[in-house]
């Protein structure tokens, strides 16, 4: 077919020959400018959040410079800043987090398994779910008070590692449960159906298929929860973690101190030397946290990349 001109006579289209003008009107240009400014503003604000982090890290490292050495890591706190170190705090934190993990991880994963695999929809279970969501938002110092009343005084554990670990476990339990539930929920239901269709019981299905599948996600959540516990000071203050501890715990019933407590103690002293000590301890704490979070991120990539 040869291209013939379309007969537009009788239509409303302007045929005078002038081209259609698609250039921006002044109003549009103004809107565009505003839009660009807005974008730039949002970007700047986001980057400033990043900048805060950089600033904070820079400051801390600068303050800690020269104060963080092997001596620091292997000494106990002292009235003389030059001799002070975080050995007691490091070991205390280690003990505390180990026991916390031992207590909170099985309970949390078990609770998540119950809620996702066994629970019937009903009033009790809705209550449990709302309850967990609320617990996640309770200030950590309130957990400290609970720990004080229940474990330190009530059960009579005193100001021990065990009392603190139990308290910390309660604190991070909602976090673990929520993360574990998500991981369990992400396991495709076709997997469960296949197992049930072969005549498996619920526990057999959960144990052999659901839990192994959900494990990377659960581990990620656990690591993040534990890294939160490492940084918490308020509950430990309430359960009586001391600040001037010149020994390493030898049993779960011993008194102890932890890194955040030591940091708080040094930071609240007026002398500048103690501030440097606090900064050095902060660097140690941040390194530990960074390692844990990197591990969690790696695990998360592996879980979703499968």
């Amino acid at each position, binding site marked *: 077919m040869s291209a013939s001109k379309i007969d537009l006579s009788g239509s409303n289209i302007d045929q005078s020959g002038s081209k259609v003008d698609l250039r921006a009107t002044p109003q549009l240009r103004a809107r565009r400018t505003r839009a660009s400014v807005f974008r730039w503003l949002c970007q700047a604000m986001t980057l400033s959040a990043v900048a805060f982090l950089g600033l904070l890290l820079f400051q801390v490292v600068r303050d800690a410079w020269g104060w963080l050495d092997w001596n620091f890591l292997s000494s106990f706190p002292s009235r003389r800043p030059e001799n002070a170190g975080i050995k007691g705090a490091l070991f205390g934190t280690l003990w505390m987090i180990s026991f916390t993990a031992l207590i909170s991880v099985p309970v949390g994963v078990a609770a998540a398994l119950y809620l996702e695999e066994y629970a*019937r929809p009903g009033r009790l279970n809705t209550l449990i779910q709302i309850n967990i969501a609320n617990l996640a938002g309770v200030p950590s110092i309130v957990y400290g008070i609970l720990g004080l009343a229940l474990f330190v005084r009530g059960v009579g554990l005193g100001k021990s590692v065990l009392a603190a670990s139990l308290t910390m476990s309660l604190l991070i339990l909602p976090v673990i449960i929520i993360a574990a539930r998500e991981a369990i929920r992400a396991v495709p239901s076709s997997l469960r159906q296949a197992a*049930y*269709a072969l005549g498996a019981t619920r526990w057999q299905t959960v144990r052999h298929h659901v839990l192994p599948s959900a494990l990377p996600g659960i581990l990620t959540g656990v690591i993040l929860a534990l890294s939160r516990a490492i940084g918490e000071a308020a509950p430990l203050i309430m359960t009586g973690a001391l600040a001037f501890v010149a020994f390493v715990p030898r049993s779960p019933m011993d008194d102890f101190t932890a890194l955040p407590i030591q940091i708080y103690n040094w930071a609240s002293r007026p002398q500048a030397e103690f501030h440097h000590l606090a900064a050095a301890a902060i660097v140690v704490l941040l390194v530990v946290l960074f390692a844990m979070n990197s591990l969690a991120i790696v695990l998360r990539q592996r879980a979703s990349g499968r």
Partner: protein
Amino acid sequence: MKRAQSPPGAVAAQGQTMSDSEPRSPARAEGSPAGRPDAAIQGGVLETRDLVVRYGDTAAIKGVSLAIPERSITAIIGPSGCGKSTLLRTLNRMNDFIPSVSIGGRIYYRGLDLYRPDVDPVEVRRRIGMVFQKPNPFPKSIYRNVAWGPQINGLDANLPELVERSLRKAALWEEVKDRLHDPATSLSGGQQQRLCIARALAMEPEVILMDEPCSALDPVSTAHIEDLMFELKERYTIVIVTHNMQQAARVSDHTAFLEAGELIEFGDTNRIFTKPEVARTEEYVTGRFG
């Protein structure tokens, strides 16, 4: 036909979600108008009588009476949403996992009421296996996929031999015999589905339910599986749900036509597709709707 002997002091149906206990809905829908099975296949290995299945208030199956004959392939066809999959899943109590489900009427397996309180759904599923629409092998090795079912059910007398036997029956052995410990996910779609069939066969069931087993596969794999079904029906009873009428016509010995939860017609496949008794059946198989 033996009735089940309940062991003395048998506990009530095991604690899985909801509907393991006596889920009887009193409403009995009208029997299907022309669901009269051909005389020769009355009271087959699986039989439903006035089966009603509800999800909450909606009835998905409204009074279906159907007898599945032994050692043959029965196809269930019908337009989408007619309840084919629901019907299939009731046969091995896979519907138990849906909290709002309730079952009315009866389902008999060799004369035994499947939904009696002392019947253990786990035992039911050992005898009545299932293959799903989308192949769903476990994220484990090929060997473990086939071996897992027998192992947890205590049937692991001679596992490697059982695995080989099942893979041979599923026409997969030659292709995987040298890589039994490779992950099942490394197989193609068609191979995975045959693996799922092998997995079901390893349980030595009597009946195999197949829920649109080929709809996620390419034509070549589909042909393999259809060939497989011909071989299997010599030993097993197969019930297949399919939305592909040509497949039903090719493969099955008997066909049930469902529409909107009711059994419109059931009978010999040749007859259903050439001289159906009910007008609606004829309209469906000639493609006038669905």
